[in-house]
């Protein structure tokens, strides 16, 4: 079962990368770009057939390793 863990900087945490991307887009002539946030996505193959259990497992992985909850929030989707 494929699971997607998306990790984003928390609101209030500096996101220099997102900011720089916003700048660069403006520099390339893209108008009307507002806030930009840059995060990570981790795609996992899990040997699990139950979606709820897969989700629970991935959430545990996110809390333990994939996200640093001091600065990041995460969400899990089962594909």
């Amino acid at each position, binding site marked *: 079962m494929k699971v997607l863990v998306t990790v984003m900087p928390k609101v209030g945490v500096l996101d220099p*990368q997102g900011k*720089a*991307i916003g*700048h*660069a887009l403006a*520099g390339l002539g893209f108008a009307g770009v507002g806030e930009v946030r*840059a995060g990570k996505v981790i795609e996992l193959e899990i040997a699990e057939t139950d979606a709820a259990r897969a989700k629970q497992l991935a959430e545990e992985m996110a809390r333990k390793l994939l996200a640093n909850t001091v600065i990041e929030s995460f969400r899990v989707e089962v594909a």
Partner: protein
Amino acid sequence: MTTSAPLPALLAPDRAAQLAAEYGLKPDEYDRVLAILGRTPSLTELGIFSVMWSEHCSYKSSRVWLRELPTKAPWVIQGPGENAGVIDIGEGLAAVFKMESHNHPSFIEPYNGAATGVGGILRDVFTMGARPIANLNALRFGMPDAPRMKRVIDGVVRGIGGYGNCVGVPTVGGEVNFHPRYNGNPLVNAMTVGIARADRIFTAKATGIGNPVVYVGSKTGRDGIHGATMASTEFSADAEEKRPTVQIGDPFAEKLLIEACLELMATDAIVAIQDMGAAGLTSSSVEMAGKGGMGIDLVLDDVPQREAGMTAYEMMLSESQERMLMILKPGREAQAEAIFTKWELDFAVIGHLTDTGRITIRHRGALEADIPLAPLESEAPLYRRPTAETPKQPVLDPATIPDPVGLDKALLTLVGSLDLCSRRWIWDQYDSMVGGHTARRPGAADAAIVRVEESLDQGGNRALAMTTDCTPRYCLADPEEGGKQAVAEAWRNITATGALPLAITDNMNFGNPEKPEIMGQFAAAVRGMAAACTALDFPVVSGNVSLYNETEGRSILPTPAIGGVGVLEDVAQATGLALPPGLDLILVGETRGWLGQSLWLREIAGREDGAPPPVDLGAERRNGDAVRGWIRAGLVAACHDLSDGGLLVAAAEMAMAGGCGASLDPGPAALPPHAWWFGEDQGRYLLAVANGAGLLRAAAAGGVPALRIGRSGGEALVLPGGLAISLAELREAHEGTLPALMADTGMQAS
């Protein structure tokens, strides 16, 4: 040939001939394949012949010329022919080094192209049993306003840093040039220097019938497989899946591989070892068996694979990174496996040595290739391609070239120009200090200085001096003088730190060798290099050739990049270029005001012509030996060689490095001032010494031309006549260029 042995699945004759052409084999080369095999080849066999006989692996156009380079000296332990050169640096220690190009991949994917270039050269060095202690590079970019070029510059610099920083090998030096002739073909040459015990050098010579062939490192994927694979109808599956993919560097895996290999090398389990570089498993297995006069049987089912359904052809041609092939002593597999498992790397026995003199490859129960090794090497194509001499350019008379702007404006323009501006923006992204032994980092001396930890451990304080050099515009105007100059400048840069230059590696970057004028450049450059190496006792111990550097028929400037290595017995003797106050400035060497091909001529007068400055090798040697002697006698507080931009640029560089100005005396009346201050005559140094008169006496006694040209102190460079250029102004011009150019390239995600 009749044989009762089974045959691999052979290609149909027409198909084989067609594929051979697609894979780059010329018709007569393919005829030789047929003669060696006595039959048509299998797909895997054809792949092996095509990569082994490629320019990159066989050096078919360059070998006849490279033979002219001097490669011997009493301190040379291993010259060209192994993965890297080895020299004796005293105390039972050896320096192992080589330079290699990754030009084409760096243009396609700058970050990973440059990163894997660094990874590849590191493997060439630690495969010999050496711990890498320093990386350098030699970069040539197109003009920053050329399409894509800023992205290339940014990606290459990040890639070199990304890889070197992560593996923990300091990047301590390099050089960069910009020229429109590199717009479509930048050059990325990477050099690694390592240290081994002189009596513990590992080589690629496989011996011992039955000995296991062991694969270690990362898994094999479809990275970098010959693009021609695509055209092959054998692969009917999803075309997107089968497309050759760009090699991605994994410096973390490399770091583990270094530690694991060195740990195993500390035992006596290894018979031979070779990294899987270009043409991966093919070249490593063929070369190891070939060097030992052995045969080799491989079973590919056991190769660690990253992707499903890989064929024998793909595995043999994959250029996945961070992999090594070893021959172990019998019964040592478990000991070795334990080490690689500890470092979380793959380990697999994938075959054994035989006495057949052939390489056989099996996969899924089928024979995929069976090739006699001796003719694969001895029958490899070798060309003496036609050459055409580069026409000589006239020697320019400085009196006929007026100065349009004045010395002060010219100086500010020059120190801010692309080829002379500060490289700080680059080296600030490279960890130059990791290891704790970098005594002179980029910008601090003419060569980088790194102490040898093994020397410290045994009570010594020995250090290596390292540099990369080449002046391509000289090489274009006169490849022979340019080749000479590149070697001489490397020697001079090492000398200027007080170190004794010992040997070089080279990276010959040229255009299409099938054009006589390009092959002529190559031959002439080798001639010049050979003359300089001989005169300076500075032999070539390793090197690399990169040809076909052309886009749309226009070749790059001929660029024989030189990497030089020297030794300092005591790191405390190292001299840098930072100018202290209150000292006499002494110019060593003869100045004729040579403006031909100078940066002043290009940047100020807008001309790129004339003969480049000749190198008088006798004077070079005499001047350098004298300077080194004075440094070692403790007479010299700072020293800088004179190269691009000449005397005034050198003085400005020393002033900026030391945060100290100087007042300068007028030059000889016979020369126009701009020729005196900006001419690029060779074999010269600028020294800061406490006792100028004493030094001049010593110089006169040794027949060395020397002249006092000023005194250090103050906050400005004061030109004859009183015109002052403040350090602040100089710094702004010098430091501002690259940051301003690259300001809008910061958003790349990694």
